[in-house]
């Protein structure tokens, strides 16, 4: 279970003060597919970055299995991250390594032996549908294929939690459907917790169980997807659902 309580994050620069996250409270149950939806600039990426320890919160805590992960540093942070698969907005693949080696790196640094690495990579490549692309370099792949590599790289370490930041926002509608189908398959196969950050309502409606709506750094609404969709309370939710004019 992921328990986010009273989480806030302020960015302070010389001439700027941004409250990117304001008193966020969320509980994400193990094994669920949880969506966080909001407009651009709402604080979604900041929330994800805080969840993986790339940002330290200004206040609040994130408990995962009784550990406040916002306090972790160094090797403890790395140990926590070894259970987390992250797919970033913009793929962030290693451009000078081919698909196979992109997947091999996280296994290598875990000192997993050669045979096991090979089996695992083959399994994941098959799962995400990248057979035949093992030797290709990211620069020669389509957006959808790059996203598959990014997902494969996150999965190759057998994570307990999979975090995805706008996994479909750079993709066309058909590729989006394929990626969402893939995520559903992954969830069915491994029963891991999946947290998807998005600004597209279709992503939430097609695969998420629960959803939280974030606006201006605040969670304005949360609950079961069907409940929220049938009876939206906030203007932003209505806006995202297309039930209200801008």
């Amino acid at each position, binding site marked *: 279970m992921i328990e986010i309580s009273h989480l806030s994050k302020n960015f302070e620069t010389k001439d700027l003060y941004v409250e990117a996250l304001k008193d966020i409270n969320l509980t994400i149950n193990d094994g669920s597919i949880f969506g966080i939806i909001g407009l651009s600039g709402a604080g979604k990426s900041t929330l994800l970055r805080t969840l*993986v320890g*790339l940002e330290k919160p200004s206040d609040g805590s994130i408990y995962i299995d009784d550990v406040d992960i916002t306090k972790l540093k160094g*090797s403890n942070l*790395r140990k926590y*991250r*070894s259970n*987390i698969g*992250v797919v*970033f907005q*913009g793929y*962030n*693949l*290693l*451009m*000078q*390594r*081919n698909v196979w080696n992109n997947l091999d*790196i*996280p296994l290598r*640094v*875990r000192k997993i032996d050669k045979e096991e690495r090979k089996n695992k990579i083959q399994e994941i490549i098959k799962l995400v549908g990248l057979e035949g692309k093992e030797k290709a*370099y*990211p*620069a020669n792949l389509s957006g959808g294929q790059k996203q598959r590599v990014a997902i494969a*790289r996150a999965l190759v*370490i057998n994570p307990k939690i999979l975090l995805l930041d706008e996994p479909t926002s750079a993709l066309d509608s058909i590729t989006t459907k394929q990626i969402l189908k893939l995520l559903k398959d992954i969830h069915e196969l491994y029963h891991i917790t999946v947290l998807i950050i998005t600004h597209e309502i279709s992503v939430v409606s097609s695969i998420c169980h629960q959803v939280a709506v974030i606006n201006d750094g605040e969670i304005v609404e949360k609950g079961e997807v069907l409940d929220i969709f049938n009876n939206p309370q906030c203007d932003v939710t209505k806006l995202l659902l297309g039930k209200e004019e801008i």
Partner: protein
Amino acid sequence: MFKQIIEVWNNVQMFNGIWETVVMVFVSTFLSFLIGLPIGILTVCTDKGGLFPCKVVNKILGFIINLGRAIPFIILLVALIPFTRLIIGTSIGVRGMIVPLTIGAIPFVARLTENTFREIDKGVIEASQCLGLNNFQIILKVYLVEGFPSLIRGISLTAIMLVGYSAMSGSVGGGGLGNIAIQYGYYLFDRTTMLIVVVVIILLVGIIQVIFEILARLIDKK
């Protein structure tokens, strides 16, 4: 004309001059990367938002690099003579030039390395951290690998700069093509020899450029 060139060529021992220049440039390029690369890496890592930020170290390194780059090479060349004598035993010839050439190129290499690594997408570094790589592994497996094609081009830039510096070193008794140019072109007013040396240097620079560009393109997968 052709005969004349060959005559000059043999007279001034051009092959020997080329060889000496190549040796000086090769060795000092190698040594300046050996020292400049880690300095550049350290500068990037200690910078704000780097792998292990440390303002003091970062400022000191930045100051040294800037200072090094501000000193004109010809002055460095003269100023380093006692130091070179101390550690090499001589301050002239090919051996004597290795020290000033290397020291002259270190700040350049450090800055070059710094720029190369800054170009690498910050998101790729963060993704690598999330994949469980420690700082050492990120330097080795991400910075150096992702920046490799760029570094190859940097080696070319450094070597070309050092061809120029090594020619300059002829004025204080360095060997190689610079020495031939000074001896024949400056002291003996031998225009033909001077011209041939200039052409040889231009060719040398061209060859370095072409070889490294081909290499960089072969390696770069982006």
